């Protein structure tokens, strides 16, 4: 097969540069950095070098020159700080090819095509493959195909679906009123529908349109236009590729463009969980009115790669975030969009929410920066994947009929409130007997936990009673103590009064005038003795009560400690139950029959 170097060099370099992503960690070839140089600085459409300086380009270039794999975390940091890659239009597509490792996806795509099933030299030009599929001419050459007008799409079947959507993709923008741009959209969707593995799905049209909008298609040169088309085509096939084939991108669009939209469930669970964590009041307000936010937001965000109602001028900003951040990027953008409309939603009734969510626009760099700034990582997303898996296993177990009892005669209608049924059938089945035995195991676990927790609860409750009774005794004693303290104080006061009266009398009666004390002084003395006696007794009583209180306080502390230990033991029982429950459910996973 012949290729035209003049036509394909720049695109070739874009794709080959992507190989550095998988191989550069060990030994990148010298051509890698030069091809990247060509990618960033020598592209025929690229503006002057200065345009690249305030962008991620130097970062990518430097890492390639010093033989390091793509600095993904640095790139992500850059985009989170600046809101986008800041790359000029023609280089954006090259960047997407680079960050998505499109070259590797191209080889996989190729090996799935019938003409390459028996092995081939994968150094083949992607442009040629694109043209051959577009014109359904597997043996054509670039020269023979490049200026061939594409065959009009059929009005039925898959092509019919594409045809119907061409005029319905951003229909009001000037860009898609131009026939050649519509033709590019149609060409790409047609080829992606052939080789992407999922046919054509509505939603792809928006992603492709977004990429076309930010690629600055040339008006004059058909050759350059075809190059861009083929580049977008292979970026799309990369986005569709199953995650395990392209681990560098954590979101595979085959989950959203494949039959039954299998990824809807997880994305909704993640969106709902994060949404509630972020703003519970908003969710309660809307969902209390029977409107399920996640269904609407996820359909829009994930199926169209956040391109559904973006303003044309903001396409590239949003695409940068989607392509670089994948799943968590789309989740954050959707939640930010929702957050921005919070005030309006909270002030309106639920009947207005549909209308409010329809309003489009405003996704500029500030929006993306703020959205991505929210600290939720890919780790949390993976955690939620596991949570949902357990929830669904649990739902399946709880739905199964109890062992020993005859199954219901008529099949029950699925409960659409459960995660297992809300978004269509799940793609795995667990044998009935296994579900039943698991149900029994969970029941036993529940019973034993109930038993243990009942014992602990009763101990906790008697401990509480004891604490409360000691507490009451302390209160009574404290009241008593207060009384004694008051009594002592009053006796001391009395004592002081008698003392002063005595001294007063002593001054009146001159000393040594009489051998005996006058009667009033004697009376005072007696009174003093009696007061002192009572005071001594009161002090002893007071100290006794004080001692008693001290003992009770020590006792209550001990009892509180005991109660605390019992409570901890109860928590441990529940924690252990949770862990065992998870283990029992996890065992089911290995026995799933994939459909």
């Amino acid at each position: 097969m012949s290729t035209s170097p003049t036509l394909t060099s720049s695109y070739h370099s874009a794709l080959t540069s992507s190989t550095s992503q998988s191989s550069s960690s060990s030994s990148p070839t010298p051509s890698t950095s030069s091809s990247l140089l060509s990618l960033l600085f020598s592209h025929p459409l690229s503006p002057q070098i200065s345009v690249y300086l305030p962008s991620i380009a130097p970062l990518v270039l430097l890492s390639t020159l010093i033989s390091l794999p793509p600095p993904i975390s640095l790139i992500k940091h850059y985009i989170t700080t600046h809101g986008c890659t800041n790359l000029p239009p023609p280089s954006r597509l090259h960047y997407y090819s680079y960050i998505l490792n499109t070259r590797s996806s191209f080889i996989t795509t190729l090996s799935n095509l019938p003409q390459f099933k028996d092995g081939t030299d994968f150094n083949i030009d992607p442009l040629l493959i694109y043209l051959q599929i577009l014109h359904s001419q597997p043996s054509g050459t670039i020269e023979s195909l490049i200026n061939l007008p594409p065959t009009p799409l059929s009005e039925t079947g898959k092509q019919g679906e594409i045809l119907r959507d061409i005029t319905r993709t951003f229909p009001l923008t000037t860009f898609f009123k131009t026939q050649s741009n519509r033709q590019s959209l149609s060409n790409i969707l047609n080829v992606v529908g052939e080789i992407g593995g999922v046919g054509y799905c509505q939603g792809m049209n928006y992603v492709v349109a977004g990429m076309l909008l930010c690629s600055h298609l040339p008006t004059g040169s058909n050759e350059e236009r075809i190059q861009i088309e083929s580049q977008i085509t292979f970026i799309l096939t990369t986005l569709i590729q199953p995650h395990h084939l392209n681990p560098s991108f954590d979101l595979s669009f085959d989950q959203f463009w494949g039959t039954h939209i299998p990824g809807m469930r997880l994305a909704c669970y993640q969106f709902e969980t994060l949404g509630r964590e972020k703003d519970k009041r908003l969710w309660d307000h809307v969902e209390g009115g029977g409107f399920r936010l996640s269904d609407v937001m996820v359909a829009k965000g994930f199926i169209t790669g956040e391109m559904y109602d973006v303003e044309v001028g903001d396409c590239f900003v949003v695409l940068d975030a989607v392509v670089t951040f994948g799943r968590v990027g789309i989740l954050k953008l959707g939640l930010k969009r929702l957050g921005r409309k919070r005030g309006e939603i909270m002030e309106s009734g639920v009947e207005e929410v549909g209308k409010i969510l329809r309003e489009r626009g405003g996704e500029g760099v500030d929006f993306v920066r703020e959205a991505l700034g929210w600290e939720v990582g890919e780790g949390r997303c993976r955690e939620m994947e596991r949570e949902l898996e357990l929830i669904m296993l649990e739902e399946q177990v709880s739905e199964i009929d109890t062992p020993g009892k005859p199954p219901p005669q008529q099949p029950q209608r699925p409960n659409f409130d459960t995660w297992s049924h809300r978004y269509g059938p799940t793609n795995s089945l667990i044998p009935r007997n296994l579900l039943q035995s698991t149900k029994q195991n969970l029941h036993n676990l529940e019973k034993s936990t109930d038993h243990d927790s009942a014992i602990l609860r009763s101990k906790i409750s008697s401990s509480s009673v004891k604490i409360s009774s000691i507490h009451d005794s302390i209160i009574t004693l404290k009241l008593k103590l207060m009384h004694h303290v008051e009594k002592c104080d009053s006796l001391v006061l009395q004592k002081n009064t008698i003392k002063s009266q005595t001294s007063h009398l002593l001054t009146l009666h001159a000393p040594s005038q009489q051998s005996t004390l006058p009667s009033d002084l004697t009376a005072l003395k007696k009174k003093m003795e009696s007061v002192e006696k009572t005071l001594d007794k009161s002090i002893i009583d007071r100290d006794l009560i004080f001692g008693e209180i001290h003992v009770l306080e020590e006792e209550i502390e001990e009892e509180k400690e005991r109660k605390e230990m019992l409570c901890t033991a109860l928590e441990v029982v529940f924690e252990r139950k949770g862990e065992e429950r998870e283990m029992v459910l996890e065992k089911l996973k290995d026995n799933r029959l994939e459909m």
Partner: protein
Amino acid sequence: MRLKVVLLGEGRVGKTSILFRYIRNEFQEKQQSTLQASYMDKKIKVGTTTAQLSVWDTAGQERFHALGPIYYRDADGALLVYDITDSESFTKVRKWVKELRKIVGGDINIVIAGNKIDLERNRQVEEKEVLEYAKSVGATHFYTSAKQNLGLEECFTDLATKMVQQNLTKLQGLAGGFQPKGGKSKLVVVDDTGEGKKSSGGGGCC
């Protein structure tokens, strides 16, 4: 009374256009293809009962069928739309009816709308076939044109009437024979089992 209506039908039969025309009296020749299912509300008076209709628009492509239950599971009524110039789109209506009957049962009121009646000259779907089919499944049929604003009021009023009646009957049942005021004389009682029910094919413009 809040009632939920879901618009179902193949891609590009005019679901979104019907929604916009009916709720906002707007029509766009070039409508974007729908992916974000969403709804719009409108108040409607049936007899003396005022109902708040929540009309849900959905994506039409076959592969989104799996997501259908999210929208129709708790709907009071479904408006199944086909394009009279596209026979394949009518085949999809049959599929929807089967699915609704299977999953939601007889509780959901169904109205079928043959849209784009302004393109009568390009008609591909036989009127006789449609009317017979609608009758057989106990659905009412209307011809509509979102572009020329034909048949939509009648179509939604009929559906709303059925839904209001159903709700009032339910309330009556709950209240143990309590006769709610109004909304009765003009109502058509719908037999959802399908057989022997009068299918209008009319009301609107056919």
